[in-house]
């Protein structure tokens, strides 16, 4: 299912031997409820990794551990190890804000700020200290171009982002995430609120972006996972049941439960 021609574009940043993310024995509790059970996963750079599973299986929760967005949930407690380029992101010296700058996130529902298109994109760079107007202009343009939405929006940069269609809003949010120059893009069911055409555009965009970014996408749409991802992880009740190349997981799953889910016996 992976198009070989895309494989050729892959280049690895940093040490080829270390994966982008190395997750080891990750446990996560909400209060006394254990939402993730000893998850191990290596996420390779410049690939799209899809996380699938029935709702409530922990796939979104897992995604949020990668940029520490779970920290803001009261009663959420995590043990285990998550390394980004070999550095433990839960270690004392880690600056959460810089981590989240490196690991961008796109949410299930498009969530542009109630401000202009321009201000939405410029928000991140401004947060991280970019003040010069010309520099911001450049970032806004390049981010929108990367998100393949520049042509649609270049004439309405000063208009409110809330006036855009859902699909445009979501691509704007991707552009907003790209504006802070991340390495990784986390996408939490980015197309679940969109129509098929917008969904197609986002998928195409993801394919394009993986040349430069590592992408982890949570989806409840198995066809989507099969279409766009290189690796797939299947979560069930907080456990990572199966993780491997998308072809193997979909064509020859090792686990009976994976097969049952993929063939639609539950979910």
């Amino acid at each position: 299912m992976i198009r070989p021609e895309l494989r050729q574009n892959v280049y690895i940043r940093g040490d080829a031997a270390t994966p982008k993310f190395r997750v080891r024995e990750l446990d996560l509790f909400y209060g006394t409820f254990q939402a993730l059970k000893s998850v191990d996963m290596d996420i390779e750079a410049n690939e799209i990794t899809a996380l699938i599973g029935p709702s409530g299986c922990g796939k979104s929760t897992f995604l949020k551990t990668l940029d520490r967005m779970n920290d803001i949930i009261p009663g959420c407690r995590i043990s285990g190890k998550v390394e980004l380029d070999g550095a433990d992101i839960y270690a004392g010296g880690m600056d959460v804000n810089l981590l989240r700058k490196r690991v961008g996130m796109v949410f299930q529902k498009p969530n542009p700020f109630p401000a202009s298109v321009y201000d939405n994109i410029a928000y991140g760079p401004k947060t991280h200290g970019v003040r010069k107007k010309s520099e911001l202009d450049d970032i806004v343009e390049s981010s929108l171009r990367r998100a393949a939405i520049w042509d649609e929006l270049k004439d309405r940069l000063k208009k409110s982002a809330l006036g855009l269609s859902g699909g445009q809003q979501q691509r704007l949010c991707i552009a907003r995430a790209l504006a802070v120059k991340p390495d990784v893009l986390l996408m939490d069911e980015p197309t679940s609120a969109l129509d098929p055409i917008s969904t197609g555009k986002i998928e195409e965009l993801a394919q394009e972006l993986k040349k430069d970014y590592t992408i982890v996408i949570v989806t409840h749409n198995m066809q989507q996972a099969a279409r766009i991802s290189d690796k797939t992880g299947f979560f069930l009740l907080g456990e990572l049941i199966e993780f491997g190349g998308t072809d193997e997981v979909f064509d020859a799953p090792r686990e009976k439960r994976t097969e049952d889910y993929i063939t639609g016996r539950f979910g």
Partner: protein
Amino acid sequence: MTFSAFKETAMKVVFAVTAAVFILCVIVICVFIFARSVPAIGEIGLFEFLFSTEWAPNNTPASYGIGTMIVGTCFVTAGALVIGVPIGLLMAAFMARYCPKPLYKVMKPMTNILAGIPSIVYGYFGMMVIAPLIRDNFGGTGYSILTASIVLGIMILPTVIGVSESALRALPNTYYEGALALGATHEHAVFMTEFPAARSGILTSVVLGLGRVVGETMAVVMIVGNSTALPDSLLDGVRTMTSHIVLELGYATDLHRGALIATAAVLFVFILFINLLIVAIRRKGRAK
């Protein structure tokens, strides 16, 4: 028509009439106040009345200029906003985005107490406690713009806090999360993302506070000094329009009385403008 259908219609009319009472009240209040002010203003001259700083009803010829009082109201209002709004907004952020739940259960009743204290008690507290403090530390009589600004700044706190807090709470979580996901700190997310997102509610809270200050009477009259001269410093006393009315209405007759009622009319127009402002802000907020 059956009896029950008649009853339904009759009661609907009754309900509609009670709703119309509100419109009637506004009209009646306008009519009575303006009916008494317009002749007085006509006699004094509108320009003279609004812009002259000479108020001397006992002189011959008497002069009735409320320019000083308008200036006084503006000074005191500005002072109260300068003190009350920043603290109120920061406090709203505290209540909505910082305060842990157990502490909230203590802080919320505290702001409610602030809202419940009658203005006469604020006035007395200002007169007995804050005015002497100002007098001892900064000089002057203590009955001053500064004193009134402090007391009124405290009085608008619950309005600013309450309305802004609910505006912040009404925001969806997604703005905060979106900001955090871009690497913003908690403060950055709250003040640079959520505050702009909640701006119509926050602006409303400020304008409501403004209305409260402009209209406040009893607290002001006890602490503002009530001098009819233009102030030179924050430590000088002034007269606001409200305190002006309360002070002199008890003994004023004829044109003097008319001039005081006309002062109330000016106050009324101020408040109408403020109300229109609130409506405009709300409409703009809804259009978003």
